């Protein structure tokens, strides 16, 4: 199997006042194409920072990230954005739907950015798959949390990404709704054969992925396959 994400010797430090704060230290791991992968750890362990670096939302202080065969260090901000638009899907803890766009328009954004011709049609299909076809003209503020996350799922899959990053996808949802969203996430993932990288502190969720990377204090504790593998 080919590797879709290769992380090598990643370091990330932030400056807070006069102090240097090391958030990630010497992180190296790979994610296989089509694999489901989770990053777990307590709060402040650097999970979200790592996810940001993996997706090219930020640049490391040292080390390299190779995403879909591209060394992110060699790409500028706009080239990374282009890569994300082509290859990456995102799911956020707080859904991050654009409040000024309807559900359908939110789902269409990645496709429209690509200049796709039938963005609306494809978006409607995805909304149908997440069970929200009848709510396509609703604004995010008119939807419940679970519905918003389902719209976010549809958006994440709209550009048929090679890899999907999910940051605490159930963090803002109740258990029942969260369960439904996760099921939908895995189903869609399976159907589209997308690589899935989930950041979570929920071990139950992590155990449903094929590989778990445990972080603590910005360092890798373990990187092991799960029973689901």
């Amino acid at each position, binding site marked *: 199997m080919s590797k879709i994400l290769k992380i090598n010797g990643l370091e990330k430090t*932030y*400056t807070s006042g006069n102090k240097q704060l090391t958030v990630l230290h010497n992180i190296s791991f790979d994610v296989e194409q089509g694999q489901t992968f989770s990053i777990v750890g307590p709060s402040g362990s650097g999970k*979200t*920072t790592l*996810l*940001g670096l993996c*997706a090219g*939302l*930020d640049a490391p202080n040292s080390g390299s990230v190779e995403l879909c065969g591209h060394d992110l260090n060699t790409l500028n*901000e*706009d080239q990374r*954005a*282009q*890569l*994300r*638009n*082509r290859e*990456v899907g*995102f799911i*956020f*803890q*707080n859904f*991050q*739907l*654009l*409040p*000024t*766009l309807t559900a359908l*328009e939110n789902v269409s*954004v*990645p496709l*429209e*950015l*690509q*200049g796709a011709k039938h963005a609306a049609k494809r978006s409607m299909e995805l909304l149908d798959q997440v069970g929200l076809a009848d709510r396509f003209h609703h*604004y995010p*503020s*008119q939807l419940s949390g679970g519905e918003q996350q389902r719209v976010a799922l549809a*958006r994440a899959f709209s*550009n048929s990404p090679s890899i999907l990053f999910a*940051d605490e996808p159930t963090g803002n949802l109740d258990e029942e709704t969260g369960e439904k969203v996760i099921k939908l996430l895995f189903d869609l993932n399976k159907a589209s054969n997308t690589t899935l990288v989930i950041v979570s502190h929920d071990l139950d969720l992590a155990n449903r992925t094929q590989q778990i990377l445990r972080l603590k204090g910005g360092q890798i504790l373990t990187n092991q396959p799960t029973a689901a593998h």
Partner: protein
Amino acid sequence: MSWLFKMAWRDAKASRVRLVLFMASIVLGIAAVVSIQLFRDNLQDNIQQQSKSLMGADYLIDIDETPNERAQAIIDSLNPVATEVNFVSMIAFPKNGGTKLVRVRGLEGAFPIYGKMKTQPELASSTYQDDQGALVDATLMLQYNIEPGDSIKVGELTLPIIGSLNSLPGSSAVMSSVAPPVVIPFGLVPDTELLQFGSRKEYQYYYKADATTDLIQLEKVLEPMLDAEKADLDTHTSTSRRLGRRYENMGKFLNLVAFIALLLGCVGIASSVHIYIREKLKHIAVLKCLGASRRQSFLIYLIQIAGIGIIGGCIGGLIGIGIQESFPYILQEFLPFEVSISITAQPVIMGIVLGFLMAVLFALLSLLNTWYVSPLQALRISDTSNSNKPKVARFAVFGAIVLFLFLFSYWLLEHIPYAIAFVIGMLITFAILAGVATLIMKLIKLWFPKSLGYTTRQSLLNLYRPNNQTLVLIVAIGLGTFLISTLYFTKDILLAKTEVGSGAQSANIIMLDVQPEQGEAISNTIAGNDLEVIDNIPLVTMRIHSVKGMEANEVQQDTTIRMRRWVFNHEFRTTYRDSLIASEEILEGEWVSEVSAGEVVPISISDNVAEDAQVTIGDKIVFNVQGVLMETVVGSIRMVDWGQLQLNFSVVFPKGVLEKAPQFNVLTTNAPNEASSARLQQAVVKDFPNVTIIDLRQVYTIVEDILSKVTWIINFMAFFSILTGIIVLIGSVRTSKYQRIKESVLLRTLGAQNKQILKISALEYLLLGLVGSLVGIVLALISAMLLALFVFNEPFVPSVIPFVVFLPIISLLVLGIGLSNISGVLNSSPLEVLRREV
């Protein structure tokens, strides 16, 4: 590209309430600028029309003798519309044997080209030529109890009086003349047999210029040619210049109002966009996560704002035209003049261009943030790595804003130093307000009153903690108040000036030719009519004999000398006194109040005489005082406000020189109405037939008319812009609604009561309103003082109105809007508010 437009439209559609506030600033600013520009143009046309009425033509050529062939060729080549010959002569009224020195004006052709010859009966002005009769000054007829139908004897010619003459264009010379006008047909002048060789007369040829003629250029070209033939060219523009500083100042004031209206719009834009974009940064981070480039996310909002600028500019332009159009209908009763409306696309185009530039430039600083926002923000990570945003871009935007302001003010003022001063003034004001806001935040942080209650502490914390709006609101409120107050102070400066001369103590009756021994008796007659003598001015007539050692013929021969010929031909009516009067100001040299016998006589001359005679301080001028040559030097040069309703003089001597020269006096008084004026005139003429009386109320009708317009315009425009400012201010504070709503909802969720939430917001907004408006007013006081000193050249007496009215009203307004911003939180459940507003 079309996706960018689509996204801009989608986002704008959902943010319409916020964008309406933003657009309101543009609409109001542009509407004010457009209507002021149109109104100013209209008014200028109106006043220009009246300045043409003062002369009766666009320009005229005058010559003191029968024109020679060359002069006649020039005169004829320009195709005069009307011709006049005028001369001073005694006339007689056969009815009662009364005699009087008058100015006979022989007219032919379509005179006046502009303005109206007002006669009683009205038709007399058009029939006197055919009826071969005369029109006689109304005051003169009143004094001598003459009626239309009586006859008048001019030299050897006796002709019927067709009507009384109430006003006649071209009669402004009456101000300096001792003779009331009598109009007769030009063709009858030879029959008077008064125009012999060598007798004093003046030929005037009146012209109409087409719309494209540049009168200044025409004057430049013709003046030397005419000068060589002893003729002069006078244009209506130079006549309107004589209307004085008030007219000039009104133009400057209207420019100031337009500048301020636009700036108010810019303040509104900058403050509302700043907060609007700040709220959008998270959305932009999400867009970037989804793959939007920096350029794309920047362009979405740039397109949105540019679109709003264009639409706002278009609406503003149309409203500006609408305001202008509605004036004649709404304000017909109040407007002191007719406004003619011409609809052109130019104001709308101007509105669109200005709206676009205003919106984009003043939003650009905030828009730059979209470029640098990190997609990490979508992952709840506050990224600090981009805090060092390239300074070059910011400086470039800042430079573009400054350039725009400079170009706009230069377009309005057409004066580079003023435009630079206006822009620097705005920058200093902005810097001071930003400095005060920063200082306040630092001071509160430094001396935070920890012992105070929770709500007070929370209010104060809101002023300097992250997500504070102190800087934005203090700058917006401060700039708004600064601009409004500057207008108010400036309006006061100009109106105080306009009042001078129109008060009860301004002379409107002038009595000339009062012999020294008659002074006391006439004063008693004035007092006997329950009136007061305002001035008793000695008057000595003289001519210039030589300037800087050169006599008239030498000047004539030397073509390199640019001295104007009239200087030698003019009979100067001079006076002597020991002090300046209100309408005068020393430009150069020193005023000398008194000299002793034998000393060099330092005289004071008006700036126009200095320019035309090409003299400066220390130059020698020899006067011929009724046969006696008197050597003087130019001691000072004065600027004279000829528009003031009082007797002004080109040449003023110090005391101690002319007291023994043959002279007569001028007595002035103020007659409150026509009846008292007539009573006084009849009484004076009966006992002192040699005295000439001029009723300034008639002479100055046109000037007063213009002044009443000036007052009206100044008041109207000031209050219109102040209203604009207040609405923009409301918009700016209203935009801050979205800033505090989350905090208020959170507090509500945590159990805060209405009273507590209200208290927290009230104190925050009250402090912002008080500080912003106070600093704004103080800065306005300084700026108005500078404007009075350097732009309007008027004394400045600060009004207390901005302090006692604007300060509390603006503070309360800010408080009121601030509280209304959170009213939704108080009346609804937290979740409902979050869903609706956030």
